[in-house]
């Protein structure tokens, strides 16, 4: 293992860093709550907004929330997540194709 004193300073540095990260995460959380409230409001008072605006809008908000979850809560922005993210995005790609197909070439 490393030298202890070196370690201690690095521990403090790390603590600071993760405390800062924690604040960011909390901010993210507030934003997520905010987005959620907006989504619900825009639907609950749907006479305020045209529905062909609301649908893409709340989907966009959902998309942003997912990015938040992935990159802030699940630390996908940290080093060592290249492979996981490669596979996640491949999965998203397959998911997208599936949903697209089911919205277009499944008839009723």
């Amino acid at each position, binding site marked *: 293992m490393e030298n202890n004193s070196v370690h201690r300073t690095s521990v403090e540095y790390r603590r600071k860093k993760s405390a800062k990260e924690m604040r960011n995460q909390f901010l993210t959380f507030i934003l997520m709550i905010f987005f959620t409230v907006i989504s619900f409001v825009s639907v609950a008072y749907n006479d305020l907004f045209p529905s062909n605006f609301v649908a893409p809008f709340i989907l966009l908000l959902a998309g942003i929330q997912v990015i938040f979850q992935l990159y802030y809560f699940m630390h996908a922005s940290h080093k060592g997540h290249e492979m996981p993210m490669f*596979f996640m995005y*491949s999965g998203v790609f397959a998911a997208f194709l599936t949903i697209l197909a089911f919205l277009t070439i499944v008839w009723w």
Partner: protein
Amino acid sequence: MSSIAEKRSVGAVLWEYLTTVDHKKIAHLYLFGGGFFFLLGGIEALLIRIQLLKPQFGFMSEETFNEMFTMHGTTMIFLAAMPLLFALMNAVVPLQIGARDVAFPFLNSLGFWLFFFGGVFLNLAWIFGDAPDAGWTSYASLSLFSEGHGIDYYTLGLQISGFGTLISGINFLVTIINMRAPGMTFMRMPMLTWTTFIASSLILFAFPPLTASIFFLMFDRLFTTNFFDVTAGGNTIIWEHFFWIFGHPEVYILILPSFGIFSEIISTFSRKRLFGYSSMVFATILIGFLGFMVWAHHMFTTGLGNVANAIFAVATMAIAVPTGIKIFNWLLTMWGGSIKITVPMLYALGFIPSFVIGGVTGVMQGIAPLDYQLHDTYFIVAHFHYVIVGGVVFALLAGAHFYWPKMFGTMLSERLGYITFVLFFIGFHLTFFIQHFLGLWGMPRRVATFLSGQGLDMGNFISSIGAFMMGIAIVIMLVNIVITTVKNQKVGNDPWEDGRTMEWALESPPVYYNFKQTPFVRGIDTYWIEKMEGNKGLTPAEPLDDIHMPNNTIMPVIISLGLFIAAFGMMYNPMNQVGDGKPWAIPVLIIGLCITFGTMLIRSIKDDHGYHIPKEELMNDKHKGGIAS
């Protein structure tokens, strides 16, 4: 069996195999399990061909015939081809990347046992009456209509074995990502490892849709839901989409590792490194990627509309490009090489023209307006047997011969190998070539019989003869295996003499910890590089140290057994569509699930740190473990 095993009692050997987590032993299990199902599927194929020997033969009833090809297709794809590939992947991939085992030895074993119990469950259908009879595709309108429990065996059996496959896929992925020896960069990995990697990613993304849709079908049949029931708002096309969203990647799951096996064999026996390695890698990735965007080419006649048909047609044909890259790279690998004709090499040589024929008929089917004629005819049957038998089965047979010494320490007889190859090769073309024309002449597939006077008699007769030649070939191979095993003549590390990748630096079969010291990789074809420099083994990347090993465990068997038991409860639950619910069903279901989840809980609560082989013991071990010195 290996020599160590022979000295112990049968019970001990059996227990060893039930509890093993060693990838090499699991490879044996996959080989025997998959081999067993291959014979079963082959016998079913022969029965199909007997029934179609002449018009209106009446060798078996129409119901039985439908069950026969359904089980043939399902068994061959899910229970024979894939597990046999897993056998070779398990046996070889960890060695190729310089790992002591896979990333999750426990899950490796669990994957096998899930496959095995799922397969057994599916095949119990033969014993308990109705076997599935709606085709391996089980299109929803028919599979809901199907009487008896046949389709339930299909859904439950495939569900169980599907979990196993998914687990194995993830396991290979993590192994390849994390367990590579120092210096083994991605762009130095042997082709079999690369194709395993890509095929495993396809498994990861293709099996979940299958899982979902099989659940729907199961719910519809066992719990009267309405996913596919048109009268209650359901939609049968959903099933078709899901099946092929899974099904098309599935065929690449089969063929990519086969390509990998051939890549190894061709470069070994040409004594040349693989031509265009990076484009081979690129082509593999591209095939995997495109493989997800073409599924609707199985549904050109479903009525998806012109736009969809046109898009999927073009996307389908595009796959010819990366596949072509591979074909030409193999040819150019041989070009300028020093080609030695051995049994594995013969299969590789047989593979190239056979697969190209199958591939180009695939492209013809990809031409949507032409596929309106070809779809659901024997032309399709011909196409996919050309790619599957000419590609995958050839690869399996080639791989079995090639890696036999590495897996069992003995060499299969060359002479019998030649005979097997010649018979199989001729029989294969005899069986399936004519089927292109049967299809073009108007013979639909999946017909229990055909009428005379429609010009189909001769073709079917020829086809059946060919099938029997393949049967004889396989019997000869079995004889070969038995003779070789009885003789038990041990071979050295590099029995083919031209081995290039790391597995050939190890003993045959490798010692249970594979590498005494983790090797250091200095380039593509590690062992070849060392050999060329006159070294007797690999360069170690670390000093000799204790080796950490996982413990054997019986839990995977119990977990799988639990699901196997639960499946019966599920099938006979009181709500099932057949209406023969049993009072014991729900308790059995619960007991089964408790066994499974209980064992899983125990597994996660009980610490299992494995054990260590002390350095001293390793120093005294006569095994070299692949390392020079």
